[in-house]
């Protein structure tokens, strides 16, 4: 992975409980889609498999389209966002 970067990875709510942590860091390709990013994360945290289809992803606090090609930078904050239930 010559074009790999290290990003921060945040988990919340159910995904946090399943992952067993609220934050970690992970190496990912510099350019990738959200769908591919999720596949990589599930490889590290297979226990997220049941929820992966229902989560959204935010990069640096902005929601990202699933098929958008992301360009990530070292230190970027990737967050797994389970279905929202605020209010």
């Amino acid at each position, binding site marked *: 992975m010559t074009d790999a970067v290290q990003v921060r990875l945040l988990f919340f709510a159910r995904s946090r409980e399943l992952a067993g942590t609220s934050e970690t860091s992970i190496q990912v390709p510099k350019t990738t889609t959200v769908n591919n990013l999720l596949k990589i994360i599930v490889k590290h945290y297979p226990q997220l498999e049941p929820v992966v289809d229902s989560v959204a992803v935010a990069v640096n606090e902005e929601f990202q389209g699933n098929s958008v090609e992301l360009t990530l930078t070292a230190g970027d904050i990737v967050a797994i966002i389970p*279905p929202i239930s*605020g209010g």
Partner: protein
Amino acid sequence: MLNLDYVSVTEKHLDLNALTDMVGREDGGAISTFIGTTRNSFQGKAVVRLEYEAYCTMAEKQMSVICDTIRKTYNVLNIAIAHRIGVVPVREASVIIAISSAHRIDSLEAVHYAIDAVKELVPIWKKEVYADGSEPEWKENCEGCTKSLSKK
């Protein structure tokens, strides 16, 4: 007079009077508010409390985005959106929205929009804890909503 956008994710008890005072203005004729409160039951099961968790920095950012959208759509004066996190006992407020406007239609419609938007766009989650000791549940505001966010 400068317009105020106040957004807050806090562990503290929400103070309705403080929020309406904050949005009240001499040039305003209307304040509309929405208060989300913890219900004591879900599908027949007694609920003892809700526990809220937030992605705080992003949540406040998303609330600010909602304020911007409100200002593009409705002729409002001041906006306050506050969400409590942590444990919220039954009957207490988890969210308060207060919006002032010169004429009533704007704040009424803006508050309706705002609570719908908060429930759809702001990364906050609630876990319901039941009296019967059954497994606490992470709620979902509506199926598929969050997934559809990623297309927005």
